[in-house]
């Protein structure tokens, strides 16, 4: 029986990984293209949740979950155009400060618009409930969510590795000056990447609204975990983030099974061990900008 329980937790950890991945992947994308550690990323996650909650009484649950990330992605255009763009070639400390400030502005703005009290979002009753497979129990909603994450992950991988868009973005990551010399303007590509990044965070917020507390500080709450995932995986690495999300999810689930009180600490310990042995993260590459 014990082995079943362990297996069940491992699978649950994989589902959890999908959730971490939505937030961490956008963070990592924006970093690899612009060299900016976006501390305001949690704000877009929170905004995604709030918009989904606000829109669902008018549009219905599913349309709201789709519309909210699109709106946030549009906001991402402004974010890139008026804020991020000024910092691509500056000292990283400046973009850290400005996005940190923006995270606080976002949280307070949510407080002003929606109030400090948590909002309630209920999922449609046909999505609720468990799926029992032999001795295993899964949440129907999380399985659907995992499907959405896998689909998005595939799309983004195809976009980056199998399209002309992706070729320019990858070239821009490696050598922006050479791309410019070839007569390609990188700016529109940067805007698109930021849109995708913050849009992914908003998908996370919209999908998680029915199973977590929707409150102004939810962005700050998730950002820590997202950073741990990105750090373990290695900043800027696509597969590193995927691997790290899986590791963090599984380690957390298994710790709950055997040592529940240490469940939150487990991911910090994991990060500690990884950084001791691989200071750039599991699949991280040397980052000239940060290592001088």
């Amino acid at each position: 029986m014990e082995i079943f329980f362990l297996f069940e937790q491992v699978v649950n950890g994989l589902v959890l990984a999908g959730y971490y991945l939505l937030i961490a992947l956008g963070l990592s994308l924006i970093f690899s293209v612009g060299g900016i550690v976006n501390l305001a990323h949690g704000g877009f996650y929170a905004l995604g949740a709030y918009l989904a909650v606000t829109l669902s009484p008018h549009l219905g649950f599913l349309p709201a979950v789709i519309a909210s990330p699109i709106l946030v992605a549009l906001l991402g255009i402004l974010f890139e155009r008026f804020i991020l763009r000024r910092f691509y070639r500056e000292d990283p400390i400046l973009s850290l400060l400005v996005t940190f400030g923006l995270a606080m502005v976002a949280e307070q703005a949510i407080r002003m618009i929606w109030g400090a009290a948590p909002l309630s979002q209920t999922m449609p009753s046909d999505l609720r409930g468990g799926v029992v497979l032999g001795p295993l129990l899964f949440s129907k909603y999380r399985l659907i969510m995992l499907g959405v994450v896998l689909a998005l992950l595939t799309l983004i991988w195809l976009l980056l590795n199998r399209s002309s868009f992706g070729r320019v973005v990858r070239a821009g990551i490696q050598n922006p000056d050479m791309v410019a010399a070839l007569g390609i303007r990188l700016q529109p590509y940067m805007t698109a990447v930021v849109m995708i990044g913050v849009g992914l965070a908003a998908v996370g917020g919209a999908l998680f609204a029915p199973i977590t507390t929707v409150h102004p500080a939810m962005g700050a709450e998730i950002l820590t975990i997202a950073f741990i995932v990105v750090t373990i995986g290695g900043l800027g690495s696509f597969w590193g983030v995927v691997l790290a999300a899986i590791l963090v999810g599984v380690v957390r689930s298994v710790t709950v099974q055997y040592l529940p009180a240490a469940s939150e600490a487990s991911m910090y310990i994991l990060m500690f061990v990884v950084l001791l042995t691989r200071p750039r993260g599991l699949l991280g590459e040397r980052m000239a900008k940060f290592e001088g």
Partner: protein
Amino acid sequence: MSDCGKNLSTRRDILRAGAGVGTAMLGTVALPSLLRAQEAPIVIGHLVPLTGFLGTLGQYAINGFKLGVDQINASGGINGRQITVIAEDSINPETAATKAQRMIERDKVDVLVGEISSASALAISEVAARNKKLFIATGPRSDVLRADRCSRYMFCTDIPNAVMVNAVGTALKQDGMVEGKKFFTITSDYVFGHDLLKAAKAFFADNKADLVGEELVPTDATDFSANILKIRQANPDIVCLNLGGNQVTNFLKQYAEFGLAYPTVGFNLNTADAWAAGMGSFGGVWPTVWFDTIDTEGTKKFVADYKAAFNDQIPENHAWIEYITAKILEQSIKEVGGTDNEKLIDYLESEAKFDILKHRPAYFRKFDHQLVQEAYSFSVKDEGSYNSVYDMLQLGAAVPPDGEDLTTIYPADSGACKL
């Protein structure tokens, strides 16, 4: 330059004086009271968590206290003195203690009020005792604050964990849901949760219930899927929640998501966390210290005033407790004729009666400084029988029932609290 600095020592002093005079002029017309209002204002230091897992409750607390103080100031203050509140986010026990010390030293507060976290309240209580400053703890529920960690300078207005357990336990026993049943507990891993678990275990032992699993969860945990799987493995009759703040909301939403059939009961709940869980997410029996449908004139007026002041929002129990704490202070300072802390403590210890908007008046017990008052249980209405979350909860009868002494639901004097 330095002279200027001495006369107007801090920016805060200028603001405080300005605010005091300003509100006095707005609020009063009669000349004598206007003259008296020139006296130094009464300064109250207010600390509640506005961030973290208790942050959403903190906002209700700030609003409730503000409403109480605004009403007092509008009616001419206390003995002609206006009240100035210095409110800050207490964040965590370390910061709470530092801020309390700073409020006493720099802002010269007359009284400290607030807190929801039991851990932070303990930290503030130590600072208050060292400085011989009165601290009215409004939200913490740990029994230790009323037992071995009690203090001459701390008074507690919220009901303690033991009473929460008694309120729910009484309702559960009536439904035959205790004796011989298997319980699984999920507990918040800090002083409040440990304390609540202890009270719950005592209740299970007294009533021949089995504890088949107990789980401690860190306060920053937001995902309970792995814990929910463990509950299923243990196959209990009832799942019992000893969680605090938005942990309750997160757990209930995810429990509904997995669709487990074991009924839940909770030994702690603040109504804001229940509202946030949304419709159809939970059932069961829960305790509460106050609810907006309590049928008294006082509660009706408070709810109406609060809605008028805060955008038609319905107040929850932390707004109420801060409001009545402001009124308790008003009555005490009036009776004593000032803010001398030792005299105030003597007055509060005299078991003076306070109107707290419930059916029966409340008073502080001399031996543990606990505000003795009625408690309630409530249950969740059947799905489909209500249209909004504010309409979702059904208030049960007051415990103890009418005619029975209020102290019957409170722990007896065990001698642990030495004042």
